[in-house]
């Protein structure tokens, strides 16, 4: 049986590993709710992580790095928007292309700028996001259970973690309580109706893709500046696709996205902490734990456990009637 300290440790690493997924999942949510499929989350995160790592290494500022990461991600988002909104291209193919572009360009530029085989130089203090200690964390630590929960689990994360969690209610508010959110959701379900109401479908979709770019930028920046100390070759390691899986798991809803990404973060944390898990006589291999998010997503997609219905106009370019 695992003790309380181990549990706190695992939950703590769940939060850290779940945060990039959360950012990317919310990013995908905005894009797909507006009817633009985005399998390029991975590429955007990778580009952002690279630029964040590179700029933070040169300037020594984590926040400048984050800005650069968001910028890089926005460029990719713009290409995706250009291909899938303006030129009505295939959104899936555009996403695939952008993933490869990020994977190749990060190494090409990384090698050219730093000559470290694609890595960026390891960051020293200031270039990384420091842990933030919440008020009274030290004072409350001796209290059993609650004290540990507060000081070890809630406190002591980097700024981006708290921003990530704040993004959940913010996204929910933006999507369900504002005029823009209503229009954005409508564009994903029935763009013709939005067009008839005299609102630009193109404009709303570009806005959604841009929000997606910003959030992916934060996801990538957190990977390079929060979770690790610098950019490493292919450091997203499929997280963009896990975020995509989480998005389906969450049925394209912000609060569910929090649950889904934390669940997948938890799976990764458990897999890291216990490479082999013994349940009775069966030992579960670590590879199974790694594959579990994908397996769960396929099960959800198959509709055996709760049906996940994507936005109706997803993936279809909008053609104004002539």
């Amino acid at each position, binding site marked *: 049986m695992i003790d309380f300290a181990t549990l706190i440790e695992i939950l703590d690493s769940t939060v850290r590993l779940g945060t990039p997924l959360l950012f990317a999942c919310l990013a995908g949510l905005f894009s797909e709710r507006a009817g633009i499929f985005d399998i390029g989350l991975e590429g955007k995160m990778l580009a952002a992580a690279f630029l964040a790592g590179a700029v933070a290494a040169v300037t020594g500022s984590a926040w400048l790095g984050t800005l650069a990461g968001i910028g890089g991600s926005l460029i990719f988002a713009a290409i995706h928007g250009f291909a899938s909104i303006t030129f009505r291209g295939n959104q899936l193919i555009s996403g695939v*292309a952008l993933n490869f572009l990020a994977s*190749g360009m990060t190494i*090409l530029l990384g090698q050219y700028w730093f000559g470290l085989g694609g890595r960026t130089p390891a960051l020293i203090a200031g270039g990384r996001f420091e842990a933030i200690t919440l008020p009274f964390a030290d004072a409350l630590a001796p209290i059993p259970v609650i004290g540990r929960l507060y000081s070890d689990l809630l406190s002591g994360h980097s700024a981006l973690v708290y921003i990530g969690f704040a993004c959940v209610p913010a996204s929910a508010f933006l999507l369900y309580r504002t005029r823009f959110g209503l229009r954005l959701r409508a564009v994903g379900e029935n763009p013709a109706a939005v067009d008839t109401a005299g609102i630009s479908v193109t404009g709303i979709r570009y806005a959604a893709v841009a929000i997606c770019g910003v959030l992916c930028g934060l996801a990538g920046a957190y990977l390079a500046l929060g979770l690790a100390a610098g950019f490493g070759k292919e450091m997203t390691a499929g997280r963009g696709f896990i975020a995509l899986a989480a998005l389906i798991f969450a049925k394209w809803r912000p609060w569910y996205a929090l649950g889904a990404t934390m669940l997948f973060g938890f799976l990764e944390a458990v897999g890291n902490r216990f490479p082999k898990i013994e349940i009775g006589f069966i030992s579960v291999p670590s590879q199974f734990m790694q594959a579990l998010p994908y397996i769960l997503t396929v099960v959800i*997609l198959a509709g055996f456990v709760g049906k996940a219905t994507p936005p109706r106009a997803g993936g279809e370019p909008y053609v104004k009637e002539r």
Partner: protein
Amino acid sequence: MTTLPKWADTFLVPLISLLIAFVLSGLVILAIGENPVAAMKLMVTGALGSTYGWGYTLYYATNFMFTGLAVSVAFQAGLFNIGGEGQAGLGGLGVAVACLYVPWPHWSLALIAAIFMSALFGAAWAAIPAYLQAKRGSHIVITTIMFNFIASALLVYLLVNIMRPVGTMDSASARFDAVMRLPRLHDILALVGIPFNNRNPANISLLIALLAAVGVWVLMWHTRLGFELRAFGKSEKASVYAGINPVRITMYAMLISGGLSGMMAINTVMGEAQRLLLNSVEGAGFIGIAVALMGRSHPFGVVLAAVLFGFLYQGGAELALWTTVPRELITVIQALVILFTGALDDMVRRPIAALFLLFRKART
């Protein structure tokens, strides 16, 4: 957009897209401080300047023919199979099972078994996403992506825990028996008296890939099933109205596609490595997407595009060897080709169509 004549649609548009992709790649090379012209020269001599280079080019091209055909069959039926990577990985498992556990007396028998098993395993891995798409409406792109990851976890598990011979450290299966070495291209060409370098992995799988291309062509344009596949891809509604069963067509398209992806493994696993390695696919499943887009989903185009990508692959490896340009340049070129021939197709097409319209008006 019906203003384009057919030849412009099939040749001019992809060629211009390719040209744009290459020009941009040249700019990328320039941006990282190398000379694009010198780089191109190095790539051409490295990949096509000797029979050694040709051997590697054709070896890579063989992989891309299989995966490109796989993607294009699915494309023709209106399905986007991104799962080539996982299907090819499972195909490798099929080859390993066929070659490791049966003492074949001759390579030809082993090859037949390996073809069968690789296609079977690849098709089986495509069958689940296909079934879920056909019966439950789960988006095939997402499920095939998920299956890529599941396949890689499965292969790691099998290679590390089960198939790895006792006492070895690297995660790979045991070596196949020497009897099962496939004839290399230089063996085959020596039969007709053509000298060919013998230090490259090009092998008989190339001929199988070419046969597969012919097979796909016959299937798609000269059989009833092929007609149904294409009709389904053009318009699902119309084909269902014409009495075509959508579940059956989706299953067939994906089984053929998965089988073709899986067959790639006879080239890499049986033809080259002679054992199942951890990452034997090396992204060829994804390059299949670029190849299918570039080849306009036609077997003939796919073969040409596969050779082009084989050249890029081998040329890129040579470039990485002699200059500071990393191998990943190929990934960038591949991305640009996919972007321009796939997603930004309309951007290239619109001005060309406008130009043709202008010419036509001027003539009348």
